[in-house]
C-alpha cells in the first residue's frame, strides 16, 4: 500500500465522505439526545458500522428494547446485506486476513463504490478495495463523533431528527425504483407490510410481513425471474 493507492482511492470515496459526515452527524446528534455521549457514538460506529442499523439502534436504546427485539429488528434492517455479499464473492477472493474487514465493512455505500469503481493501472486491486473500505468507515466514525459533540455543545431541540431514518429508506427506495425491472417487489413489500400492520398491530408487524413477502416472491418467480424458463429447459435433459 502506498501513496499511489491513496491517490487512487480517496477521490472515489469523496461522495461517501460528504454523505457519511452528514448522516454520521445526524446519528451522533440523535444518540446524544437520548443521553449517550461521544464515546458511545464512536464505539457504535466502530463496532456496528451500519447507517440505518445505527439509527434503528438509537430507537431501540431509547425504548429500552429487549435483546431479542434488538437482534430481530437489526436483522430486518440489515437483511439486504445478505444480498450484497453475493456480488462480492469474486472480488474479495484472495484478500487474506483483510477479507474479514472487507466483509465487516460492507455497507450500502461501500458496496456501491466497490461494485462500480476499478483500481487504476499499476495499483493493486486488493489494496485499493481495502483502502476504500477503510476510508469510508473513518468518515463514518468521524461524523458520529462530530455530531455527538455538536449536540452536547449546542443542546438544541432534536425532536424529529429520527426522521432521517425514514428519509434514508425513501432515498434508497427511489434509487431502487428507478433501476428496477419490475416494481412488483416494492409494491408487494409495501402492501404486505401495511396489511400486517392492520392485522397484527405495530408491535408484531415485521415477522408476518416478511413471511408473506418471501412466500409471495417465491411463488411469483416464474413471472419475475428472467432465468426461470431457461432453468426449466436445462433441468429436462
Amino acid at each position, binding site marked *: 500500500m502506498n501513496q499511489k493507492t491513496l491517490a487512487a482511492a480517496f477521490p472515489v470515496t469523496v461522495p461517501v465522505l460528504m454523505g457519511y459526515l452528514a*448522516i454520521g452527524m*445526524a446519528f451522533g446528534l440523535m444518540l446524544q439526545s437520548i*443521553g*449517550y455521549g461521544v464515546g458511545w457514538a464512536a464505539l*457504535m460506529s466502530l*463496532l*456496528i*458500522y*451500519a447507517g440505518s442499523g*445505527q439509527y434503528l*439502534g438509537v430507537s*431501540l*436504546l431509547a*425504548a429500552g428494547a429487549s*435483546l431479542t427485539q434488538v*437482534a430481530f429488528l437489526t436483522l*430486518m*434492517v*440489515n*437483511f*439486504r446485506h*445478505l*444480498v450484497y*455479499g*453475493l456480488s*462480492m*464473492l469474486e472480488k474479495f477472493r484472495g484478500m487474506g486476513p483483510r477479507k474479514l474487514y472487507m*466483509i*465487516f465493512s*460492507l455497507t450500502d455505500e461501500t458496496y456501491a463504490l466497490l461494485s462500480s469503481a476499478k483500481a487504476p493501472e499499476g495499483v493493486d486491486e486488493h489494496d485499493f478495495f481495502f483502502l476504500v473500505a477503510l476510508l469510508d468507515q473513518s468518515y463514518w466514525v468521524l461524523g458520529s463523533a462530530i455530531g455527538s459533540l455538536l449536540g452536547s455543545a449546542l443542546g438544541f431541540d*432534536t*425532536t*424529529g431528527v429520527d*426522521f*432521517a431514518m*425514514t*428519509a434514508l429508506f*425513501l*432515498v*434508497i427506495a*427511489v*434509487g*431502487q425504483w428507478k433501476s*428496477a425491472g419490475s*416494481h412488483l*417487489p*416494492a409494491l*408487494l*413489500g*409495501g402492501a*404486505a*407490510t401495511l396489511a400486517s400492520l392492520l392485522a397484527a398491530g405495530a408491535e408484531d408487524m*415485521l415477522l408476518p*410481513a416478511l413471511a408473506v*413477502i*418471501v412466500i409471495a*416472491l*417465491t411463488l411469483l418467480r416464474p413471472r*419475475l425471474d428472467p*432465468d426461470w424458463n431457461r432453468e426449466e429447459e436445462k433441468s429436462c435433459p
Partner: protein
Amino acid sequence: MPLTPAQTLAAIAVMAGVTFLTRALPFLLFDRGDHPPKLVLYLGRVLPPAIIAMLIVYCLKGVTFPALGGWAPPLIAGLAAVLLHLWKGNDLISIFGATVLYMVLVQGVFA
C-alpha cells in the same frame, strides 16, 4: 439513558454481531467456488426493494388520523425526500433536507 451501561454494551454487541452475520452469511454459505442456488440469487435480486418498502411502512407506523399533526409532517417531509432525490439525486441533500423540514414541522408548524 433508559438502560444501564452494561445493558447498553450488550445491546451494542448484539447489533454488531447480527450486522456482521448478515454481511458474512453469503461468504460462509457460498464462498467455495460453486455457484449459489438459482432461487437464492433470484431472492437476492427481488427482496431488497420489498424489504425497503416494508421498512418505510414500519417507520411510518406511528402515523395517526385524523388530527393534522398526526399525519401531515411525515407526508410532507416524505414527499420532500422523494422529490429532492428525483431532482438532485444526492443522498445528503435529500436526507438532510427532509429531516430538517420534518423537525421544523413537528417542532414549529404542527407543534
